């Protein structure tokens, strides 16, 4: 791995950890604006929340101590998945980077379900099963969408796609639509926050976590959200990078700027939507994913 590649991957991980809690406060501020109120006093509010939690007692319920391992696995997988994103230079992992990204993003979701199952609380387990149903539908569509985005650029590699192969705009638009819906769903925002649906599940997956463990739980949720926004941003950045030649640091800055924009768009969508029932959410998604996938692959197959 070249030095610049390693440095930019590490920089992306560092930025994700530092910025995701700030972006979460931006979320809360935006929601407050829509309610005509002030909201959190500073942009560091989520950081203050995390700092407070780190100083609190850890209470672990009977049989719930195993929760620590999947919690750290969720954070680690989300960070590893982030490192695979094209930071503006062709990844040495290409063409395996696509596989790497899919593997670690799936691992992040799977470990989060394990957090629920191992926390020893029935509400957490219900949340975990809801998450499982949603993730099973969504991950299949995510893999198909991501592959279609890469194929529409001619190369079966996400980061390499900016450099080689033909760019086919029509299949790209359809597959990007599919991918961006999947990534909104995996950001676990309303109405797809089924695993944590606060009113009925009392925080679901996170219900048993307290103190520093809860802080890690919150960071893992925010990192998964950042990952979703970054993959969407990377999919938008690819054609832009081809045409304006934004490589290296400028490509990296483009990726970051787009990630923040996508995060804000996600939070505006969440603020304007209501909560839905678990089976309605899954049915709606299936009815959207099947036609979009068929259309994207038909267009790719016929070389449009």
């Amino acid at each position, binding site marked *: 791995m070249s030095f610049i590649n390693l440095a930019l991957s590490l920089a992306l991980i560092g930025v994700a950890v530092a910025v995701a809690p700030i972006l979460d406060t931006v979320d*809360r501020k935006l929601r*407050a604006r829509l*309610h*005509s*109120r*002030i*909201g*959190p*006093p500073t942009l560091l*509010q989520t950081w*203050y*929340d995390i*700092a*407070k939690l780190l*100083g*609190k*007692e*850890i*209470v672990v319920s009977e049989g719930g101590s195993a929760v620590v391992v999947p919690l750290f696995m969720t954070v680690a997988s989300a960070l590893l998945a982030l490192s695979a994103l094209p930071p503006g230079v062709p990844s040495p992992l290409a063409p395996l980077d696509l596989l790497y990204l899919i593997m670690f993003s799936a691992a992040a979701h799977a470990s989060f379900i394990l957090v629920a199952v191992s926390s020893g609380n029935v509400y957490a387990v219900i949340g975990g099963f809801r998450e499982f149903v949603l993730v099973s539908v969504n991950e299949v569509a995510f893999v198909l969408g991501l592959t279609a985005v890469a194929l529409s650029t001619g190369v079966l590699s996400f980061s390499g796609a900016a450099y080689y192969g033909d760019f086919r705009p029509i299949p790209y638009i359809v597959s990007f639509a599919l991918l961006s819906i999947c990534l909104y769903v995996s950001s676990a925002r309303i109405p797809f926050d089924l695993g944590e649906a*606060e*009113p009925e*599940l*009392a*925080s679901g997956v*996170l*219900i*048993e*976590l*307290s*103190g520093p463990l*809860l802080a890690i739980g919150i960071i893992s949720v925010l990192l998964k959200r950042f990952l979703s926004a970054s993959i969407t941003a990377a999919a938008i950045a690819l054609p832009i990078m081809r045409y304006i030649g934004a490589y290296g640091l400028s490509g990296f800055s483009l990726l970051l700027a787009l990630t923040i924009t996508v995060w804000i768009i996600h939070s505006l969508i969440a603020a304007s939507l209501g909560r839905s029932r678990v089976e309605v959410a899954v049915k709606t998604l299936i009815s959207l994913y099947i036609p979009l996938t068929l259309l994207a692959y038909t267009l790719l197959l016929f070389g449009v």
Partner: protein
Amino acid sequence: MRVRPPKALRKSIWVFHLNTGSCNACDIEILDVLTPFMDAERFGVKLVASPRHADVALLTGPITRETLPKVVNALKAMPRPRLVLAIGACAVGGGIWHDSYSVIGGFPRLKKILEENGVIIDRVVYVPGCPARPEAIIYGLAVLIGLLKKKVKKEVKEAGKGEG
């Protein structure tokens, strides 16, 4: 041993709403505190759904015998430092139900039961009123986390003693 609430709590206060059998008027005032008009989030206040996440229990009602075991469990589930804001005349001392057979009569009696069960409450602030006003609840929260000082001296007067 009681634990002093850390300074970090002054910037982030997560509250858990615990109704112990109130008439619901105090609960509606709590909702007022959280809704856009009062906007408690501007002080770093966030309503949480699990007692495991909470710093402060917003306790309303005179603690009916039926709710007592659940209330003890909920407070036990909170990580230390464990703070309670007893809201309304009922939570403060039983209110109009203070001598009713079906309630234990306010937070001071609950505190004794909790201590007998090894559940320590690190700090309590009482917010009187029937129902307590939302401004008073926010003021009570600020006193509880140490943003404001208490204006009253610690002094207990028993009924029937003293003057006359």
